[in-house]
């Protein structure tokens, strides 16, 4: 029976939960010496795990494990900008085609070709509109994440996408040498000096079945693309809030997509204290609330951008972690939920791997 492994990045280290049946879970950790961990991933080819971390004392590093998270070592060799720019944190990780990518603040993308032992700068997205202002803390949203997400193309090693927090979504097809903003059709409720950028993309996912189908949870709305991000249209109608962070697409149905709407402004918790994941099964034409087993009153919890995920079982499981340390799981596409950890540190990311 395959093993389902959850990797939880928290403000106080990385945790691992494992289950053969997605009902009974065993927890291990904390790992990475309880450093703040923004994201933990598992490379599907090598089985190595990587954790993006930033210690207030000892700086930023990528931790790695080759024994399914039992033991970890860290490296930051080469993970530094030139000159005055500093790497304040490693915000995002991705692996594909034999390399690991790390997105950092101040905005930059580093790569490792030796399994995370050494790193080199790949791109700072130079030349993009307004790029010279991205490093100014006054221009950055709270969190100062820089490159908040990276998304490789499984078929083309030189093509991948990056989100710059508060700026937008970008595509490269020449391994980071040049970039194209992919924000056309998005809404922004604030002044923008450049047409193509200035959008607050929180989370973006791509259908494994249809590479042209993408979805994003934006600061202002949920949006869909049918042409690989070249254009977007809004599908927020029917949701209780246009605001949220997490997003997940069904691995076997391009029209099924999940979000967790949150109250905007200061709250950023689930509307009316009613915990729920919302699902569309028709590409955003209609939405349904999934809340069976979730707390339905007095649950003022938030879920951050990397803290909702979905596995690729035949009947997929959904998982989300809250910024107050609860972890919820569903083994049936969100129809029924259970709380599988209650007292973790603030959860920043939830990733899943299915191991045969």
């Amino acid at each position, binding site marked *: 029976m395959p093993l389902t492994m959850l990797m939880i990045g928290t403000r106080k280290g990385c945790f691992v939960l494992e289950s053969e049946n997605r009902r009974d879970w065993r927890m291990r950790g904390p790992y990475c010496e309880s450093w703040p961990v923004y994201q933990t991933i598992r490379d599907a080819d090598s089985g190595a795990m990587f954790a993006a971390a930033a210690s207030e004392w000892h*700086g930023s590093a990528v931790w790695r494990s080759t024994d399914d998270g039992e033991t970890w070592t860290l490296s930051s060799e080469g993970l530094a900008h030139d000159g005055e720019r500093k790497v304040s944190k490693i915000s995002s990780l991705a692996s594909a085609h034999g390399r690991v990518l790390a997105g950092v603040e101040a905005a930059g993308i580093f790569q490792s070709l030796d399994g995370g032992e050494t790193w080199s700068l790949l791109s700072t997205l130079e030349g993009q509109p307004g790029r010279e202002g991205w490093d100014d803390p006054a221009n950055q949203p709270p969190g100062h994440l820089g490159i908040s997400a990276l998304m490789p193309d499984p078929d083309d090693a030189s093509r991948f996408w990056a989100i710059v927090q508060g700026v937008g979504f970008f595509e490269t097809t020449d391994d980071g040498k040049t970039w194209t903003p992919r924000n056309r059709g998005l809404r922004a409720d604030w002044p923008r000096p450049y047409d193509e950028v200035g959008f607050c993309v929180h989370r973006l996912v791509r259908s494994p079945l249809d590479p042209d189908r993408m979805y994003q949870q934006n600061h202002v709305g949920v949006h869909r693309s049918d042409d690989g991000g070249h254009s977007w249209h809004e599908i927020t109608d029917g949701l209780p809030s246009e605001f949220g962070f997490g997003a997940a697409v069904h691995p076997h149905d391009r029209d099924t997509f999940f979000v967790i709407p949150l109250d905007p402004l200061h709250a950023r918790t689930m509307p009316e204290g009613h915990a729920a994941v919302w699902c569309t099964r028709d590409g955003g034409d209609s939405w349904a609330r999934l809340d069976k087993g979730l707390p339905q009153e007095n649950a003022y919890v938030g879920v951050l951008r990397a803290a909702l995920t979905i596995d690729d079982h035949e009947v997929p499981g959904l998982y989300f972690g809250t910024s107050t340390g609860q972890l919820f799981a569903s083994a049936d596409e969100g129809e029924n939920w259970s709380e599988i950890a209650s007292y973790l540190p603030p959860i920043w990311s939830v990733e899943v791997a299915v191991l045969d």
Partner: protein
Amino acid sequence: MMADVRLPPTLTPLFVNLPRRVEVDAATPREAIDELERRWPGLRDRLCDPGPELRSHIHVYVDGDRAQLDTPLEPRSRVDVVAAISGG
């Protein structure tokens, strides 16, 4: 010139067999960190930003006084490297 270097407890788990207390031949804290880097590759990055300069929450004291990377050491100086109080 041997210095008696005391390291913070958050540092020692990051490197194999790194003790809390190390004797190194050094004329300044910078040289002491250089020697620690030679013995435990990667250690400098945990104490210093590129430059190198001390990380903002890493403080160094030489014989009880707040010091910088180039503060001169006396023979048998005690060098305390402290992870300063930082958040919750």
